[in-house]
Structures are given as C-alpha cells and as structure tokens.
C-alpha cells in the first residue's frame, strides 16, 4: 500500500511565523505535489517536484516555497504566515508524470 504521511493533522500558527509542513512517501515515487484545499475552490496546486532538488511552480505559488532534498520527502514552507493562508494543505505523490496521485490525510493550518 502506498503511504503518504504528513507531519501534522492540525497546526495553529501566528501571523508572521515561519511554518514548515512536511510530507513523506514510502513508494519511491518520482513526483510530489503540494495542494491547498478551500471550500468551493477545490484543490489548487501550489508547487510540485519531479525529482530531487527539482521544483516547479503550480497555480498559486505566491507566499510559499518548497524543498526536496531527499526523494521521499517534500516540504512546504510559509516564510511569513498570513491569515489568508489558513487552509487545508494536501501532499500527494505519483510514480508517473500523469499517473495516479496518492494523497496524504492533510494538514489543517490555522493562522491567527
């Protein structure tokens, strides 16, 4: 079974804090993705990575950065959290570029 784990299920941070969201997959997948999910807006891609140290911007990268130092781990960084970044964050991985994406359980981030 493919497993994608995220470091926290719930996180509360203050405006201006630096926030790290961690994602680990155990299936040796090449591709990893970060999405945010908001009611009525669906899933929006923030960043993705198709190889170690490689990254590409998704549809809404502003205010975020990512890091992929090891194949199994993909981190999302909020350099200075703002209240409009309160959301559910979902990590996913896939073996093939356009193949099935396997999602983690999500991290619900609240920025006060």
């Amino acid at each position: 079974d493919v497993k994608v784990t995220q470091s926290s299920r719930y996180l509360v941070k203050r405006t201006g804090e630096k926030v790290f969201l961690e994602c680990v997959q155990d299936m040796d997948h090449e591709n990893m993705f970060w999405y945010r999910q908001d009611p009525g807006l669906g899933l929006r891609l923030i960043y993705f990575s198709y190889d170690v140290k490689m990254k590409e911007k998704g549809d809404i990268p502003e205010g975020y950065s990512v890091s992929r130092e090891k194949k199994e781990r993909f981190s999302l960084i909020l350099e200075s959290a703002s209240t409009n970044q309160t959301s559910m964050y979902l990590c996913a991985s896939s073996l093939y570029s356009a193949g099935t994406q396997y999602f983690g359980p999500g991290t619900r981030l609240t920025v006060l």
Partner: protein
Amino acid sequence: QQQVKQSPQSLIVQKGGIPIINCAYENTAFDYFPWYQQFPGKGPALLIAIRPDVSEKKEGRFTISFNKSAKQFSLHIMDSQPGDSATYFCAASGGGSNYKLTFGKGTLLTVNP
C-alpha cells in the same frame, strides 16, 4: 488558464438513486481524466479514470461517460449507498502540463438512507 468546470456543487439523492456529476474541460490536449473521492478527514483517493480513446468505463457501481466532441465527462453512481456520501472531484491532465492534474471544484454528494 486551463480549467475543468464541475457541476453540481452539491447533490442529495436517496439510497438506490443514480447521482450524476458532470465535468467540462477546455484544453483539447488533455488525455487523462480521473475522478477522486474524498471522505471527511481524509485525503482524496483515486476512484476511476478514463482516457479519450473510450467513451465509457465501468468499475463496480461507478461509470465514467466521456464525450470527446463535447469536451465533457461525467460520473454515474449506480445503486448509490449512504457510504458513497463524500466529495467527488473530477480532474484532467495532459498536453503541455503532463505533471499537473487540473481539478474541478468538487461535488458534495449526500446519499440518504
């Protein structure tokens, strides 16, 4: 911007009914159309997917119908059960953005007993 438009936003049916969720896309280069199912507190999970060389695909009670000329595809759930209550997302990928799935905004399905 590449878009996938999904409707309805929410849907309520009785047990045994056949809910239908529709999606329309613009980019004719899309060549992979998956549906994801998400239960509360969980991440989305792949339910069924289709490529444009077929017009219909069935897996158990779930069927995708695909109309290439109309650039539309839909999900039908036969004999729906309360356990099917979830949010359903259609998506598409292909062409110049092979890595990316473009998702619809989701449909919240409620199946009443």
